[in-house]
């Protein structure tokens, strides 16, 4: 049975002297009646699928609506030829987020994390770090368990679908998961993990789901960037010892409350917000939607 509380995961880990990720691994073994090896093998599959998806990016492809495509490549050209304001590492994160989001829009194979629309956030922070800092695979798998555990609590306490709770439930949840994963990779402890997760989610509270023409393209692809960049800054804050003044579980509950009061036009119906601009209406009409 999935944990209903981040605090509870931390306490379980502390009482048994095991790290956050291990609590999630044990819970998965119990939940699906699998061995440690089987669980880890499945996680390995997810990780290699993420790496493969990253390798499969093509800068020349366009989505069927032609709304997205090529941005990941543009960002790469810019990164390698000029001096990005964010610095080289952050620019790599931005490229990776765009690339994964575009691959998804172009019907390439990706890993939903927690959804397809938000599939770029986690790989955007993990892949550049993995490649640059040569982090061992086991450590990345631990980080993925950490992320999954956070996502599970968000799904249990609130939701992880734009249709249910707006984009805060997709990009917000993904960012929260990524922040926790990063803290683990950099040696933070369980309470720092959930602090990072809380801050990342809190920063994206209220984000609505307003996809143009109902397609997972605009604004989705670029929102993966904010999810990733936000995760990095929140992980750094948590590692610096900064905490969320509101306890992590309560932040999730706030996300739920906000999502429930969000108007239906802002919950993946493609009717409000960015989707309701004249330009978006024109696009929708052109596409016959």
């Amino acid at each position: 049975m999935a944990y209903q509380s981040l605090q509870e995961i931390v306490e379980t880990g502390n009482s048994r002297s095991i790290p956050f990720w291990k609590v999630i691994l044990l819970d998965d073994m119990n939940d699906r009646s699998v061995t440690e090896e089987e669980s880890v093998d499945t996680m390995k599959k997810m990780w290699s699928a993420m790496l493969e998806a990253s390798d499969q990016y093509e800068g020349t492809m366009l989505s069927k609506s032609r709304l997205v495509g090529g941005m990941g490549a543009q960002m790469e050209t810019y990164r390698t030829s000029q001096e990005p304001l964010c610095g080289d590492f952050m620019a790599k994160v931005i490229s990776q987020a765009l690339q994964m989001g575009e691959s998804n829009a172009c019907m390439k194979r990706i890993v939903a994390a927690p959804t397809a629309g938000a599939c770029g956030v986690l790989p955007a922070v993990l892949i550049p770090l993995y490649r640059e800092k040569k982090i061992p695979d086991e450590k990345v798998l631990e980080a993925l368990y950490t992320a999954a555990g956070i996502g599970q609590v968000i799904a249990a306490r609130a939701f992880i679908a734009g249709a249910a709770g707006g984009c805060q439930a997709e990009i917000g949840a993904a960012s929260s998961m990524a922040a926790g994963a990063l803290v683990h990779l950099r040696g933070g402890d369980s309470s720092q993990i959930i602090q990072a997760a809380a801050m990342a989610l809190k920063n994206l509270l209220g984000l609505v789901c307003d996809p143009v023409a109902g397609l997972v393209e605009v604004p989705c692809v670029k929102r993966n960037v904010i999810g990733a960049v936000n995760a990095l800054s929140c992980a750094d804050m948590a590692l610096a010892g900064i905490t969320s003044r509101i306890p992590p579980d309560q932040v999730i509950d706030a996300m739920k409350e906000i999502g429930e009061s969000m108007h239906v036009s802002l919950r993946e119906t493609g009717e409000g917000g960015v989707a309701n601009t004249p330009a978006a209406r024109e696009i929708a009409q052109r596409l016959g939607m």
Partner: protein
Amino acid sequence: MSIFDILGPIMVGPSSSHTAGAVRIGYITRVLLGSPVAEAKIGLHGSFAATGRGHGTDRALMAGLLGMQPDDMRIPGSFEEAEKEHVKFSFHDMQISGAHPNTAFLEVRGTSGKELKVQASSLGGGRVMLNKLDGIEVNCACESPTLIVRNQDKPGYVAEVTTLLTQHSVNIATLNLHRDKKGGNAVMVIESDQPIPADVMERLEAMEGILKVTYLMSREEA
């Protein structure tokens, strides 16, 4: 939700509900049909009709009908694949009252000549619900190993089937019974904790009055 519903599924984009879920609906229909699809008429309801084509829902459903899984890279080219295999197919918009916004209605005929009508909806995250089978409500998530037994609506079948499963140490998680009318056709939907052994399937199929037995494996096995 398991952690691999959060990190996962591995899928062809762009949408877990409109693409991955749609592949799964097609795939389940293909398994239920029991033979390759020769012809398919596919109705799209609600959001499937409104934004489905932009999400590749149509291609995804077809891919599933051809036996592809949500992570199959051939999904975007499923129409071409279907033409190559001489599968006749068409799509139309429809309204099904009271149905979930992401619902498809598939009328299929197999190469064996067998026909089947399936109504299913995509619930998000790639999870689906099989709503109706030939007009009979079944409401099955098809997540755990699922046995769908179609039989004549007469006393005794439930006892016989469950006894057989118990003898083979298969634990029943849920059991639902549905029928079109009293004394007509009935459907038993049994979700179990363990996979169903092949010889159990054979014995079920041999029972008198049982019209058809279909076994859907859980997501990981399938």
